[in-house]
């Protein structure tokens, strides 16, 4: 068991190392992207570019640059931005993390509740109108780009209807930390939560419904029925329990990716200064240290989510322990 955990940890480190190298190569070693020229700005004189190159240590061999950046990121933690000189990277990421975490965890609660409820309801009434209605809505949810849903939500809540009784409680776009004003924090997050959750309710609901219906073909369901269990018990205790494993796996992955910054579109549309937006802005101005930090931050969550999901599966499904 200890060996398994250790090898798992080692694998995590290897994957993260690989990701950091890939990111580094994409931005530092792509032939056409000279970081010095980018920092110096458009139409900069050759001397300026050379000065910048020396100033930022970009004239050293690549592996030295990589090593230095990793050391300043993880050990001394004084890595500074290329774009806003003097801005420290680690505090900037730490400051953006709570906003993303609030957005994603709130949405996650909604989409797990909504998705599971949708899936079970649709499976229980399959082929009849509740099923058709729920699956229709789910298909729509999956078909709409999340940022467009966000825009439409803003159009309704922030524009003309904003002054009516229905939406006057919605604050202007932006993020208020929980510690500053819990009430305002909640009110400003309601619609971002709903927007982000909507897509995943559609995905999870569809998947759970299919899973439950497939499980109904299994022998153990027939056995449960033959034992004389009620339909509700068969559905909830037997079919759903077995069909929920893929949902748990998917949830772990999605949650990890989103906390790591994949909620960038929702953050941009609702003006939430989270990790996704930070990454996006860093990418736009090619702020290499910030990019390295945010991408590594994101991959950390993905890798951890992967590991947690694997462990959870072992706990839920004893059959997997043999492998």
């Amino acid at each position, binding site marked *: 068991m200890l060996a398994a955990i250790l090898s798992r940890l080692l694998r995590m480190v290897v*994957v993260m190392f690989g*990701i950091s190298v890939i990111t580094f190569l994409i931005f530092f070693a792509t032939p056409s992207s000279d970081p010095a020229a980018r920092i110096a700005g458009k139409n900069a004189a050759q001397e300026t570019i050379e000065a910048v190159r020396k100033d930022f240590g970009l004239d050293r061999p690549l592996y030295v640059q990589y090593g230095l950046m990793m050391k300043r990121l993880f050990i001394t933690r004084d890595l500074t931005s290329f774009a806003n000189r003097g801005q420290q990277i680690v505090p900037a990421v730490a400051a953006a993390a709570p906003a993303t975490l609030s957005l994603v965890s709130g949405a996650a609660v909604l989409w797990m509740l909504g998705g599971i409820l949708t899936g079970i309801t649709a499976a229980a009434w399959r082929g009849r109108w509740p099923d058709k209605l729920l699956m229709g809505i789910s*298909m729509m949810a*999956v078909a709409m780009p999340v940022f467009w849903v966000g825009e439409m939500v803003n*159009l309704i809540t922030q524009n003309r209807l904003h002054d009516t009784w229905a939406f006057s409680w919605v604050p202007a776009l932006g993020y208020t930390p929980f510690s500053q004003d819990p009430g305002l924090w909640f009110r400003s997050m309601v619609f971002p939560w709903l927007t982000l959750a909507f897509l995943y309710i559609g995905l999870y609901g569809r998947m759970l419904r299919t899973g439950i219906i497939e499980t109904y073909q299994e022998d153990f369901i027939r056995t449960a029925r033959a034992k004389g269990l009620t339909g509700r018990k068969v559905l909830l205790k037997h079919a759903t329990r077995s069909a929920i494993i893929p949902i748990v796996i998917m949830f772990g992955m999605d949650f990890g990716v*989103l906390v790591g910054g994949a909620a960038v*579109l929702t953050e941009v549309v609702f003006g939430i200064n989270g990790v996704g937006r930070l990454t996006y802005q860093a*990418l736009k101005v*090619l702020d290499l240290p910030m990019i390295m930090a945010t991408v590594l931050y994101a991959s950390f969550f*993905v890798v951890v989510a992967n590991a947690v999901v694997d462990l959870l599966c072992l706990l839920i499904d004893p059959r997997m322990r043999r492998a």
Partner: protein
Amino acid sequence: MGASPEQETALPPADPSAGEKVWSRRGPWRRVLQGLLGSPTAMISAALLVLIVIATLLAPVYAKHVAGTDPFRSGLSAKIKIDGKPVPVMQQSTEGLGLGVTPIGPTWGPQYMLGADGQGRDVAARLLYGGQNSLLIAGASTVLCLLIAAIVGIAAGYLGGAVDGVLSNLIDMIWAFPVYLLAISLSIVMIGKSYAFGPFEISSGSLIVPILIIGLVYVPYVARPIRGRVLALNQSEFVMAARGLGIRPGRILWRHILPNVSTTLIVFAPMLMALNIVTESSLSFLSVGVQPPNASWGTILQDGQTLLYSRPMVSLAPGLAIMVTVLLLNLFGDVLRDVLDPKSARGR
């Protein structure tokens, strides 16, 4: 997002005797075709998709003969006639100090039917032109992704050993990279520059750049199940039998592995294309996808971002176009999966 169509599809092992004349007999493909023809959902969604494609292809005709504008040139000083009176496309603001201009809203007439965007261009005409690009990018990147994923997945699954080790680890690594961040990273490095690969030259702003990026980022999501499928096929009785008969590995690959993997690929195609349409729009919305003056549904959404409250139609129209197209693709894809994979259809 991390969402991906990731269902393992299992076709019953192909009838080993169906060697030479798969197409001419009542083979599995015939059954698939019959299944599709017998499903009203599949037929209606396919017909509507064809209509959308035709409509976007007719964009030049619409722009020239109906709207009478060039949707790629800004029309800031243009005037159109409404009820016989000339109306400027960019209207002076009547509120507040009267500063600034707002593009004309939907006229519901032939000219500027859906209004104008921030540069006074006809949104309806751009919507059709943009549809061409959105569909082209989504389609081409789907083909590219399936092709690469098939090669990678089959190589990893069939060759095994060191090849599998390297490829699987690479897949895992790319998988750990959030799709959107990877796509944005690649776009920023690649967009706005020209590349030359021997005789081929990719000019900056070419559609090939978003096609490449969108085609690449979803490869792991397809390659992984393909690899799993090939591993399972390797152990299947008919492949063992073929081996036992001394048939060359190349022929086994071509005759037995590939036809069985192809169904998995086909099931992925419509869903991947739907996903790619959304991805294209998201990248273009973040201005790292299709580059101006080219239009796509995503770039129109980006144009509409600043006009969201004054001229919501500029955002509403392309969003609805995306939604309808993706919905139809998913509906068609669902039927296709059920037809190709009787196991999942049984429960319905």
